[in-house]
């Protein structure tokens, strides 16, 4: 197990190397000149050239890449062109609301979706099943920003029971933070809930037709034990896999939702950086999120062992 974790961590290196190359190339082939953006609309071309040289943008691409990479390896993600703040600092500052938002969305989604999927599978073909799966299709096909604005309108504006803008920060206490994250978390999680509920249902249905479920019924076990112990534990692997895959969906939702609800997180940082062509920030965010994604997938693989004794690393 420890050996496996170490091997997997070593495999992060080539993956991240590829990510750095892709990030670097994408940031240089796109339209727009960061130096021109930085010096502003009224700068002369000589001024722009000077800025380019100061930023090292006039050097060969390969040289630029390796000097950037060497900085990265020293933990230096560069300086924001726009705010002149170290990128790492910006990311750390924005990380808190994003982490909390993602975690809240993830936890509530799983807590809602798994019971829904189990119930739908247990009552497969019934009107409950059809209603739940209909809701799942709706949840899946509603764009995050539409849902976000709808929630903000109903709960924030009409009912006035939950805040719809901003983020108070943990220093103001857990309660206010949770209140401000509730609507965005629901908006982000809707797709995720739908995805997980459907996978849970499908996986449960498959498991429920297995011979060992018949054995459990022949033993006279209560229906809840059969569903929640005998079936769900076997159905867990595809669900966990989908949680890992769905993490990407969740992150893309974070970007949109933070804009809708004016939450100063990584999503907003990214959107602003894209508008400003603040490419060190874009690069930094993509790198950090890629790393988080790779590590999350490792965590997912390790979670399998909790559910299936046949999986050993």
């Amino acid at each position, binding site marked *: 197990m420890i050996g496996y974790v170490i091997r997997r961590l070593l495999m992060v290196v080539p993956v991240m190397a590829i990510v750095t190359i892709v990030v670097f190339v994408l940031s240089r082939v796109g339209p727009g000149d960061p130096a021109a953006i930085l010096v502003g609309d009224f700068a002369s071309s000589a001024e722009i050239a000077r800025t380019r040289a100061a930023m090292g943008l006039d050097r060969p691409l390969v040289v630029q890449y390796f000097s950037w990479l060497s900085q990265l390896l020293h933990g230096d993600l560069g300086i924001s062109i726009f705010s002149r703040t170290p990128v790492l600092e910006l990311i750390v500052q924005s990380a808190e609301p994003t982490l909390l938002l993602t975690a809240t969305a993830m936890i509530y989604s799983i807590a809602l979706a798994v019971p829904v999927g189990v119930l739908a599978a247990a009552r497969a073909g019934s009107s409950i099943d059809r209603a739940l799966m209909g809701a799942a299709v709706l949840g899946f096909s509603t764009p995050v920003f539409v849902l976000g604005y709808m929630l903000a309108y109903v709960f924030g504006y009409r009912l006035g029971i939950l805040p719809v803008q901003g983020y108070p920060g943990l220093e103001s206490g857990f309660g206010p933070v949770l209140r401000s994250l509730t609507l965005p978390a629901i908006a982000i999680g809707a797709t995720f809930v739908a995805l997980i509920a459907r996978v849970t249902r499908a996986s449960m249905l498959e498991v429920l037709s297995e011979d060992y479920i*018949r054995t459990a019924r022949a033993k*006279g076990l209560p229906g809840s*034990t059969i569903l929640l112990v005998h079936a769900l534990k076997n159905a867990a692997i595809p669900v966990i896999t989908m949680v890992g895959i769905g993490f990407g969906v969740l992150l893309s939702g974070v970007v949109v939702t933070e804009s809708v609800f004016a939450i100063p997180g990584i999503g907003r940082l990214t959107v602003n950086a894209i508008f400003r062509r603040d490419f060190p920030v874009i690069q930094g965010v993509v790198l950090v999120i890629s790393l988080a994604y790779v590590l999350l997938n490792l965590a997912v693989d390790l979670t399998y062992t909790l559910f299936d004794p046949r999986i050993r690393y």
Partner: protein
Amino acid sequence: MAARGHAADTPALRVRDLEVELGRGTRRVVAVDRLSFEVAAGETLAIVGESGCGKSMTALGVLRLLPGASARMRATELTLGEIDLLSLSPEELRRLRGDRIAMIFQEPMTSLNPVLTVERQITETLRVHRQLGRSAARARALELLHAVRIPDPERRLQQYPFELSGGMRQRVMIAAAVSCNPDVLIADEPTTALDVTVQAQILEVLLDLKRQRGMALVLITHDLGVVAQTAQRVVVMYAGRKVEEARVRDLFANPRHPYTRGLMGSMPRLGASQGDGPRGRLPEMAGTVPVLDRPAPGCAFAPRCALADARCTREAPPLVAFEDGHTAACWRADAVIEAAHGVD
């Protein structure tokens, strides 16, 4: 043989006119058709027939565990000792399953839950039906593993099914099934998936447990060799119906139904009393069990029967009693006897 408190003449399990239907409309199949049998405490009843004859559906029908929403069962009588199973609610029925009546299945490789320990799978019946605590149930599980002759039971309890061989898994299945000392144990082809030496060991374990606990054992098999070794009485099934029933000795000495003869002909080792007469008439059984979606008017076996005449395809034969406790459903039962003795 400790008959558990019921009057001596009350069978442990009595089934009368059991019918099982699967599917609906054009896909409707009558898997079991008006099947009756009973088994006494301490007795082994074999139910024998080729694959697809409705043996498993009989077992699942008795336990009311039929697959899918479209499966239906009906019976005029279904009693477990004094208990009328037909009048019970699903919840009452659940409480009896695994406690008073238990079942083991054909496929040891897939019938155990792959992600639960052996301990959990043996003790859960005790914990659910007997409210035993964890350590009491565990102690009982160790005894049970000992009873089914699993070496090193302490270690086995902590293992998962994938760490066990097929034979070991079937022993675990048996241990779990008998954990609450059921009155009736239904074993659906418990050894079919196992190799021959393991088969014999598993049958021995089953018979020992039956003897020690005075259970009624319903042993489902397609193998007359197994019947000869284990059972006192036998029901021969064909296409969902009982075609013959007899004490095992009588059946082998004097089979009445051409289908039974056919099964004996395809048996690898025949009993000593079997001449080569039937082999001459029914060298092998050509054809397969019909799917009962379009019930024909006559005897279901007629298309495969060398003795069939016009009446056999026209009219279904009723079960007729011959000597004591021996019944068969065949218009040509006398011809079967003649053929067997080479008179013809």
